[in-house]
């Protein structure tokens, strides 16, 4: 057995063990799927997330795309995240579409009325990618008509930068993201945006532990879309979406999210149904260090 396989088995076993035995830790997760707020992962914690999208397609087959995220809090000011993406196009095939490596940095020490976060992501994907994690450039519904066998031949390496501005006021969170993405081949910079607003259904915590208490639910809306590219900045030939969002933070460390999304113009998919499930593993860094003898 190769050392790589042994390492993979050890990591898998560790993840399973951590998921089963990790101490209770309940995060107040925001419900957004596309927009980011300014809250980073707690240091040393690993959050494993699975997300899924059902999308309608005019003139072609509907699709189901999905991704798994491993989000790790390196420090209180730096969160790093690995995504593994795939999709199934109905009456076509299921394909792995690539990976992404994302980093978010908090440049300011204290909380302010508006809090900036710097976001840097590297994407290595193929042309069959359909996870619609953001709106950028002039991405439109018709781009998804290419059959998987043909689309996956296109290899895309992209760097994506975001400026995340987020504010929390009287229980409400307001987030605004501005995006600039550059395909590392000879393509122009593309731009996009996302807005989000959300609030827990109750601001005070209950005196008894409960699953269905109102404070465990966070509801809101998000809106996102493309803004063209360097040569043709603006809304022309871009797609835009509006989506109510809801998260349910369970005391057993799990978070469930759901969001029906609606295309706002003819370039957008008419309907996207997103849902996701995540679990936070507290003290993962310490456990990993112990396993490999990195830290006492």
């Amino acid at each position, binding site marked *: 057995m190769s050392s790589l396989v042994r390492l993979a088995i050890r990591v898998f076993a560790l993840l399973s063990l951590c998921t089963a035995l990790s*101490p*209770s*830790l*309940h*995060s*107040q997760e*925001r419900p957004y799927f596309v927009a980011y*707020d300014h*809250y*980073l992962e*707690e*240091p*040393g914690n690993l959050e494993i997330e699975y997300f899924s999208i059902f999308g309608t397609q005019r003139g072609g087959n509907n699709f189901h795309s999905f991704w798994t995220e491993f989000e790790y*809090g*390196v*420090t*209180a*000011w*730096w969160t*790093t995240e690995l995504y593994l993406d795939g999709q199934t196009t109905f009456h076509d095939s299921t394909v792995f579409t690539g990976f992404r*490596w994302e980093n978010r940095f*908090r440049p300011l*020490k*204290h*909380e302010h009325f508006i809090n900036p976060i710097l976001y840097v992501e*590297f994407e290595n994907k193929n042309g069959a990618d359909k996870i619609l994690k953001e709106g950028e450039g002039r991405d439109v519904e018709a781009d998804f008509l290419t059959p998987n066998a043909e689309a996956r031949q296109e290899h895309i390496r992209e760097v994506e930068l975001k400026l995340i501005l987020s504010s*929390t006021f*009287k*229980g409400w*969170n307001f987030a605004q993201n501005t995006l600039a993405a550059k395909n590392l081949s000879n393509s122009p910079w593309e731009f996009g945006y996302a807005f989000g607003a959300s609030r*827990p259904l109750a*601001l*005070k*915590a*209950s*005196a*008894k*532990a*409960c*699953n*269905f*208490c109102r*404070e465990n639910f966070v509801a809101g809306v998000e809106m996102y879309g493309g803004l063209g590219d360097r040569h043709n900045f603006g809304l022309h030939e871009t797609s835009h979406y509006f989506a109510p969002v809801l998260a349910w933070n369970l*005391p057993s460390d799990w978070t469930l999210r759901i969001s029906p999304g609606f295309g706002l113009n003819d370039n957008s998919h008419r309907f996207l149904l997103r849902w996701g499930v995540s679990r936070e593993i*507290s*003290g993962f860094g*310490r456990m990993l260090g112990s396993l490999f003898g*990195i*830290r006492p």
Partner: protein
Amino acid sequence: MNKHFFLAIALAALLAVSQAAAQEKDVGPAKDDKLVYAELAKAPEKARSKHNPLENDSDSVAAGRILFARHCAECHGETAEGGKKAPSLRAAEVQNAEPGAIFWILTNGVVRRGMPVWSKLPEPQRWQLVTFLKSLGVSSASPVAPAPNQVPTALKEPSSPPR
């Protein structure tokens, strides 16, 4: 070419994570505790003088206990007397601090020393945490003895099962 590119990215990631871990290691626990406590003194006068609106709320200690177990106990220990990652909250420095100063630390975190911002918790929940923390009193392990009215009964009460 491709292999070299990904190898460079992987090495950069490894170096960055190692650097962050090394920085965390450089700060010893005792030194770190004092530095974290010193942050309380940095709370602005306006924040310090804030009144805890839930100070006399009958449910706040119980609600704060649940919030503490969910969000804080992992680092500060189940009895709030400190853990490997974070200092005791039953030290005199914390227990004698104004509620407004503790609320300010919860809101702003001590980001450079590993404590995240907790403004993601709505303001009433942060005050519930402050109410709970102040109910604990100074730990007997602390150099300052606890006052008779500061027995941490809040920690002894069993938590209710989920409804």
